[in-house]
């Protein structure tokens, strides 16, 4: 029988990926982790915030990037340009900016010996400068990080393999027109004993909905015509990828959900966009899938955007150690105008929280027993194609000589 979306290796073969089992070692090995630091994370773009976070000249933010053993300082200078630096004083290596964010700064003064830098990273003051023999201030500016902005998301990289625009060009076309400039209405964070790829994998497939989320969101994302929560479509753009998640049209709304939807947004329910064109939004459902719920756009290596009608969520998976990931999720929606909006948003926040408890629990359970099966494999089905693709991309980068 020919492979179809509901049978065989439809996506996997279309994307030219193999069916082989995937070795487990990269998901716990310290050696592999070190190579991921050098070959993957130093060569890739990671998101450190939104442009709105530093909207005005003099605004800045600081972001720890554990796998790079680095702290990034991101500034907006009077020329309105966004710049990023290693947050390290060039004198004795202390952190230049100690607070997570701030406003109206014209310079950063290291609190160790008082060396000062401006928003361009230039060294502008050295106390008792004459005792440093002919110091060349230009040689001691803050060390820059590559920095760019994509759809309002600020990205940095130590040594990017490609320019930011090129890296995310295809995803950019996919989400073109979507309004990302929304406030964060809720966010969660956790330290989880799990490899970042184990973590990401749990958020780039819907196969687990039927089992893990049996009592929470299964009726929403699996139905009689799609009992295994098959993806409605999937796309691969070099290192990045995008999947679309099915929404069950027969899903019976319960009172709280009906209320949430009536008042604003229920991320568990998507109206039929064909029938209700007014609700459709640019940058969503790229293949016009029937019974579409939301898209997951995965921006290599460690971020994804879950995007639906009237909401999106940004997830970031920050590797700390081979078995430790710092996790962040932010929910973006329009600022609540009335009590109804606030209550509607509460529904979405509460729903996500319960689902995350289930996911994170499973990630730690998975990691706990991986090492004992060092000789073992992961087996990815066709609808886990994004997990397989992630492994392929990472292992290719890790194994390149350079």
């Amino acid at each position, binding site marked *: 029988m020919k492979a179809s979306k509901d049978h065989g*290796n439809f996506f996997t073969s279309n994307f030219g990926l193999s069916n082989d089992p995937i070795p487990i070692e990269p998901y716990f090995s310290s050696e592999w982790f070190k190579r991921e630091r050098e070959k993957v994370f130093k060569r890739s773009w990671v998101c450190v915030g939104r442009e709105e976070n530093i909207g005005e000249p003099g605004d800045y933010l600081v972001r720890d990037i554990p796998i790079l053993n680095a702290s990034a300082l991101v500034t907006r200078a009077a020329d309105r340009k966004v710049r990023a630096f290693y947050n390290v004083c060039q004198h004795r290596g202390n952190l230049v900016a100690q607070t997570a964010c701030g406003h109206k700064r014209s310079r950063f003064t290291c609190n160790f010996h008082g060396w000062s830098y401006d928003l361009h990273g230039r060294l502008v003051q050295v106390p008792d400068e004459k005792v440093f023999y002919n110091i060349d201030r230009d040689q001691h500016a803050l060390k820059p990080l590559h920095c760019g902005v994509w759809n309002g998301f600020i990205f940095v990289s130590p040594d990017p393999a490609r320019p930011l625009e090129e890296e995310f060009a295809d995803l950019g076309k996919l989400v073109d027109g979507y309004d990302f400039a929304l406030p964060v209405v809720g966010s969660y964070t956790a330290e989880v004993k799990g490899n970042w790829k184990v973590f990401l994998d749990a958020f780039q497939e819907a196969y687990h909905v039927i089992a893990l989320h049996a009592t929470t969101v299964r009726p929403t994302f699996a139905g009689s015509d799609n009992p295994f929560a098959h993806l409605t479509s999937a796309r691969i753009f070099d290192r990045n990828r995008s999947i679309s998640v099915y929404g069950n049209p027969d899903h019976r709304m319960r009172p709280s959900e009906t209320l949430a939807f009536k008042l604003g947004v229920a991320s568990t329910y998507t109206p039929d966009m064909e029938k209700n064109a007014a609700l459709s939004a640019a940058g969503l459902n790229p293949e016009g899938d029937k019974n579409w719920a939301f898209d997951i756009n995965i921006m290599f290596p460690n971020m994804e955007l879950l995007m639906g009608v009237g909401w999106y969520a940004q997830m970031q998976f920050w590797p700390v150690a081979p078995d430790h990931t710092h996790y962040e999720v932010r929910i973006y929606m329009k600022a609540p105008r009335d009590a109804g909006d606030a209550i509607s948003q509460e529904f979405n926040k509460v729903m996500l929280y319960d689902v995350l408890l289930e996911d994170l629990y499973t990630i730690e359970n998975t990691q706990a027993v991986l090492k004992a099966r060092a000789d073992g494999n992961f*087996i990815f*089905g066709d*609808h886990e194609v994004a997990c397989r693709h992630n492994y392929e991309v990472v292992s290719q980068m890790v194994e390149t000589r350079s």
Partner: protein
Amino acid sequence: MRLFSDTYTDLKPGTVPIEPYYSEDYYRREQQRVFRGQWLMVGRVEQLAQPGDYFNKDLAVLESSVFVMRGDDGKLRAFHNSCRHRGNRVLAKSCGKLGKAFTCGFHGWTYDLSGSLIRVPDEECFTDLHKDELGLRGLACDTWNGFIFINTDPRPRESLTAFIGKEMDAQVAGFPFAGMELAATYEVELGANWKFLAEAYQEAYHVIAVHKDTVADRGTVSRWEVERRAALRGEAPPALPDDPTPGHHFSSVRLFDRHRSMSVFGKPKSDHQLPPAIDLCARFAPSPTRSDYGGLNTHKDASWGADLHFLFPNTELLMVTPTWYLQLGFWPVNAQRSRMEVNFYRQPPRTAGELLAMEYFEANFRDIVREDVAALEPAQAMFRSGATSGLWLSDQEIPARHSFEVIDRHVRAD
């Protein structure tokens, strides 16, 4: 006085090196050679009485979580608790009872009670999936006197019977293990190497100092305390009658190839004054007759107090009467951290008096364990300082030396 060293002359005298008690490298070799491929005690058959009963065991030293389950056919089987699909823990609870099959909570892969994969949701979307090759990864599993042992090698180099050996088997033959119930479990995690911890339970020398209050009802300890106080005052020790049975000495020691047995002196009741609570316990404790003492004091020591049986690499049985015993497990967490499990097994008490007596033994042992543990962490904290280059072990501590030598032999084996 050299009671034992002259018997076991092939054990090297001198200090035991200290590096193996903190080295990461040594610990990695222990993981490979002392724990992987060896028989490890993980529980009792009573825990798994019916088909479908299982318990989970998180074993950091194997970097795994392992579960043991009784199948439909009554057989015990052990598995790595990791789904063959994406590796999630298949059984999440610490113990329980299963029906005919069990399902991984992540994506719903289902296994039967023999560990075979029987159902894969949405199987059509997997290519080249052979369910018959995707049963849970098994470990070897067998029992001795009702104790369940596992071995990471599914086809171990030696049987459990051969591993235990005739000598050790004979030590406890006839002991009524089967009639006992688990009355209490203590667990403690501490910052000490697992060998250092286990060795504290293979010598009685420390009793005079560490347990001077808790085991004070043993005559010698109070005698030692009288001498210590005199020394603190700068006085000569008072004249006391010579004690023929020092409670901090072993009355006999038997070192086997890998395991060992030790017997501790006990004092006849009439020799020491009992405080009221202990006296009460002594009166109401089940009083077995001499003939019930099968599997105890097999060496027939005079003034016998208790037996300690240490099974390589990390299990000990502490046996005092036919009515209760303790099983201790010394599990490494990493090179400098361990977890000790103490399981207190007893004959079900028939009267309130028996219950009280058991309660006393149990509580007393808990305090003793707390004293042991308190002494170990500060010592471990100094191991890397260079202040100590080796551990001095006395003739009385020969089981601890043997314990180290056996482990070291495995670590160095090709």
